[in-house]
C-alpha cells in the first residue's frame, strides 16, 4: 500500500520559503505566478492489506509525527497496489 502525505502550512501562517520562491519566479519572468506555498510531500510504503487499516495508521502518523499541528495541516491519499 502506498500512502502519499501532503503537509502544508496552515492558512495565515507566514511561508517565507514560498515568498522567496515566488520572488525568484517573478524575476525569472514567470509573472503569472500569484502565490506560492511550499510544503512537504512524503511517500510511505506500508505493509498492510486493508485500505482502512492504512488510512487509520496514516492519520495517526500524521497527528503524532508527520505534521506539526501548531502550524501545519495535512492531507493524504492511499494507493492500493495495482495487481
Amino acid at each position, binding site marked *: 500500500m502506498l500512502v502519499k502525505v501532503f503537509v502544508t502550512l496552515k492558512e495565515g501562517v507566514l511561508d*517565507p*520559503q514560498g515568498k*522567496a*520562491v515566488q520572488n*525568484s519566479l517573478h*524575476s*525569472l519572468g514567470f509573472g503569472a505566478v500569484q502565490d506560492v506555498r*511550499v510544503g512537504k510531500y512524503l511517500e510511505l510504503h506500508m505493509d498492510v492489506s486493508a485500505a482502512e487499516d492504512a488510512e487509520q495508521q496514516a492519520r495517526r502518523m500524521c497527528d503524532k509525527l508527520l505534521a506539526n499541528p501548531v502550524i501545519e495541516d495535512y492531507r493524504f491519499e492511499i494507493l492500493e497496489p495495482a495487481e
Partner: protein
Amino acid sequence: MRWGVAVFPGSCDDDDVLHCLRNVLGQDVRTLWHKDPFPGGCDGVVLPGGFSYGDYLRAGAMARFSPVMQGIVDFAGSGGLVLGICNGFQILCESGLLPGALTRNASLRFVCRRVYLRVEDNRSPFTRLAEPGELLEMPVKHGEGRYYANPATLKQLDDNGQVLLRYADAAGEVSEEANPNGSADGIAGICNRARNVFGLMPHPEDATEAVLGGESGLKIFSSMVDEIRRGSGS
C-alpha cells in the same frame, strides 16, 4: 591584482573573505553586488558563504539567476579563477560550473566544527602551494554539505584529479568519523575539469590568523595569489 567578492542577499561570510583578502593578504578587493552586471577587470572571484536567498528551496538554487552570477559564469568560461566557499560551492554546483550537488547533511543537523582536510592534488591554482597529503585545518559550518554525484561522475573526478580536498582525521586518514556530513568519498572540495573553478564546504577565510586558531586557510588564498601573479607576469 584585483579581486571581486560576490554579495547576494543573505550572504554572511562576505565580510570574512573581504577581511582576509584585504587586511591579511593586502589585496585589492571590491564587492560585486548581485543586482549589478559583472564588472570585469577581476583576476579572481570569490563566492562567499551564507544563506543566499535564505537557502530556501535548495541551498544556492536562486543565486545562480542573479545578474552578477551570469557574468561570473562567463568569466569562469573564459578561464577566470572562481572560488566558491560553502554557499558559494552550492551556487557553483547549481549553476553547473561544478558537477554534482550538495545535499542535506546525513545527520540532518547543521554542523559547526573544526576539521582536517587532506590535500589530494596540488596541481591546481588553489592548492599549488600545498603538498599532496598535507593537512589543513579549518572550520566547517553548514547544514547542506553532503556532496553527491553519481558513480560515473565520482570516477571522473578521481581520474582527472579534480578532488582537491578530502575530510581526514588528525593522522591524515580519510574516514567516516572524520567526515562531518556524509559526503561521498569524503569529498570536501572539487574543481572543474579546466581547473579554474573550485568549490569547497570548509571555510579557509576563517583560518587565516593565528589568533583565530590557525592559518592553514591561507594556503588556498596564497595559492591563488601566486597563480594570478604568475599568469599576469607581475
